[in-house]
């Protein structure tokens, strides 16, 4: 397990450089190792704080955060749409930032604070964003909805924190809360039913009431 500890530290160090590059470097290497050597998969124990509750899990180190949530913690709100970070259905909030949980190994998130759709709110006690999605019919089939809502909540935080987007024209002022900004920032969460205008209306309503 000593070797693993070192590995984990390396990954966590890399993590600060950005989630996408970590996944691109780490995933193939880790997944390929057992096949190449014929060794059985290695396991690791990690701690996650999921929706406010401490969880201790012993996982095959190749397990994605999405699989850890779905298969080990039975939190099936985040969906496996494409399993390679292109559809957004698996979006969760990790330490305050939205991530594609299918692109992150669970061991890379040891100690992290994870919020899934289930942790945002439940029927009877909905988060403002969930309530707005109901009010504006921000879904049809519902399969991308968990990811859309988690992404939307984090998007508003990003705008509040002044994080610019691809369509932000002036980097010297806080990004404006425009439809164009919201649509660009939400473009990583695809909805095949095409409920986008309702989704943007729901987010706009919450953004308006929050400022």
């Amino acid at each position, binding site marked *: 397990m000593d070797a693993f500890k070192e590995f984990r530290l390396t990954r966590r160090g890399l993590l600060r450089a950005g989630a996408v590059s970590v996944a691109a470097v780490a995933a193939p290497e880790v997944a390929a190792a057992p*096949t190449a050597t014929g060794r059985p998969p290695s396991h690791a124990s990690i701690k996650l704080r999921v929706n406010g509750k401490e969880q201790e899990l012993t996982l095959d180190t*190749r397990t994605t955060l999405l699989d850890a949530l*779905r298969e080990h913690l*039975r*939190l*099936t*709100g*985040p*969906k*496996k*749409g*494409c*399993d*390679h970070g*292109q*559809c957004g*259905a698996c979006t969760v909030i990790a330490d305050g930032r939205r991530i594609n949980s299918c692109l992150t190994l669970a061991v890379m998130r040891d100690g992290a604070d994870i919020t*899934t*759709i*289930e942790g945002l*709110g*439940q*029927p009877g006690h*909905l988060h403002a964003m*969930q*309530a707005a*999605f*109901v*009010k*504006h*019919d*921000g*879904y*049809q*089939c*519902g*399969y*991308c*909805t*968990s990811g859309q*809502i988690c992404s939307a909540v984090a998007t508003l935080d990003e705008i509040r924190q002044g994080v610019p987007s691809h369509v932000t024209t002036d980097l010297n002022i806080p990004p404006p809360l425009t*439809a164009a900004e*919201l*649509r*660009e920032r*939400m*473009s*990583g*969460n*695809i*909805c*095949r*039913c*095409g*409920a*986008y*205008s*309702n*989704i*943007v209306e729901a987010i706009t309503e919450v953004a308006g009431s929050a400022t």
Partner: protein
Amino acid sequence: MNGASQPSSQLQAEGSPVGREQRHESAHLHVAGRAQYVDDMALPAGTLHAAFALSSKAHAQITTLDLSAVLALPGVVDVALPADVPGENNYGGILQDDPIFTDTLVQYAGQPLFAVAARDELTARRAATLAKIAYEELPAVLDIRSAVASDNHVLPSQRLLRGTPNAALDAAPRRLYGHVAIGGQDHFYLEGQVAVALPQEDGGMLIWSSTQHPTEVQHIVAHAIARHAHEVTVQCRRMGGGFGGKESQPGLIAAAAAILAVKTGKPVKLRLDRDVDMLATGKRHDFIADYDVGFEADGRITALKVMMASRCGYSADLSGPVNDRALCHVDNAYFLENVEIVSHRCKTNTVSNTAFRGFGGPQGMMVIEQIVDDIARTLGLDPLVVRRRNFYGIGERDETPYGQRVDDNILDLITDRLVDSSRYDERRTAIAAWNAGNPVIKRGLALTPVKFGISFNATHFNQAGALLHVYNDGTVLLNHGGTEMGQGLYTKVLQVVAHELSIPTSAIRVSAADTSKVPNTSATAASSGSDLNGKAAQHAARRIRRRLEKHAAGLYGVAPSDVRFDNGQVHIGELKTLTFQQLVQGAYFARVPLSATGFYRTPKIHWDRVNLRGRPFYYFAYGAAVVEVAIDTLTGETRLLQVDILHDAGRSLNPAIDRGQIEGGFLQGAGWLTSEELWWNARGELKTHAPSTYKIPTAYDWAERTTIDLLEHPNREASIHRSKAVGEPPLMLGIAVWHAIRDAVASCATPGQLITLPAPATPEAVLRAIGKLRGEAWAA
């Protein structure tokens, strides 16, 4: 929009839930991540996970299949090969030409060869890649033109003829020839194909399937495991999108899982990884067409001959009915007096194409819309002028090429209103001025109409059943043969039943489609879900209401007609008012049956499949879209600027749901014709098999200025509450996007010059079309 929002129709004014913007029945579950899809179901202990092994060649004989490494991988439990299929190794619904596992003949790259069952999914997927396979390659037919040239068909060609097109072409004042190329489309339902097979006692099999067609899954599984229909139960509470992709394809997934479940004696789950899903399952047919059209100097078509050919892939699947519907939609909104349409159903060594929202209709419409556009550009007229000159008439020029009269024509009504509300003429002038002054960014504008036939072409599918239980606490359980894929069917049927019994929707629970509750169902397809299942559920509810009326009338000595259901109360003459629950309790003690089935068959329709004549459609749904785009002539990039839609949903059952269908359908159509490109390499391997390379529209692609209006116009026919089907028709509104791009490209043409633009109009295609107009050598 929640249940308490604004009224929209006469019914709502009377307090009925019908016509109200009732929120989706699963809204509270969707937003909280609590709606269960098949992939979310808790599995029994010991459930195995399966994966397909796919062929890597497009056309080949397998000479060696060595599975020793597959079976040796720790965690692998078993494999299923053709020899392991207890019954029929087929999932073809019409012809028996779709093997679940192909034997030695490989007919497309991506074809399932065998399936592995393992203790976990990752092991199954790894094991599936470990087979040592030797192929002897055969010549492959990979495109439609080659298939047409070699008469390679999955089904015989069809010819629809009316009038004397040859003579009329010879006599035509003007004549034009052209080619049309229309790409296919992957469904990209966010929830991929998935099934769980759970062996039951005494040979029974329970299947959880993400399917639009539980009955077909039931039959395919039964045939595959050599059982009868009554031994197989298929359930589907909801799908994460279907779009036609879950009409015939789920049979493959469920049958493979069931075969492994029989072999191992354990429950088996098979969930296709996204890449496998896109490689192994069918898509929208791509089409080509060659046309020869004769017309008057004012643009009016006098004669038309069209050769259409579609890529069906290696097997028939639903290609027969898809191409029949394409034939029946080449007219779209236009009267074609002398017409011949030949339809070739081409066999290619690619995945077998299948149903996709519109089911051939969109491709048929794309053909005629391009022809009309070409005529307009030849004559130097606004395409809208030529479109309107060719519209079906009212009381004259109103018979379709297949002999059905268009007796509910509202094309002019819709077009007039939309031209007005979108300020079409004013914007046409402004765009011409913009294009004259801007050499790089060009704008384009188009209005295209939709007339879409509603009903399954095959008459016998136009039936539905429902099952309604009233429990003695006054609550109601509703079941019907339709499936929920996000289109809001369960919500609409719930509204219909709440209306009939005059009880709150909260008193009714909708339940999963289940072949053991309602048998012999048709696919939830052809936009017919609400029309058929709404009527069947209405029938069941009316039967129960009549029994309750009779019971109450007998009890209080009034006529049954004096018993009035009103918002959870039941008024019995002037004498007595009970709650619905009190009446039901009394009826239970009086031994009145409180469960009923309902049934519906669509009236008036008939279809002669041999001569392609009849009235295949109960009615037509109409709509039109005005779209404005901008294109960058240096990069070929396109941008949607403004969308104005007026769509006919009859007297809408639920305007919020219908608007969602219209927006979503439009955008899906726009994606089909712009960014969604299926690309095969020279070896016949599909290389766009994941969202990383296959691009569906995102939130960023929506036009900033969008207006969507419903035409509040009751259906002429006695459909459910005079509503109209709305699932497929709006997809074809997306054709306006392609025509707006074509219009922008046309601003680079000299007068009368024709445009060569295929669909999808990707940036590459747009750039090439402009290059060709400008005579640039690279684009030739």
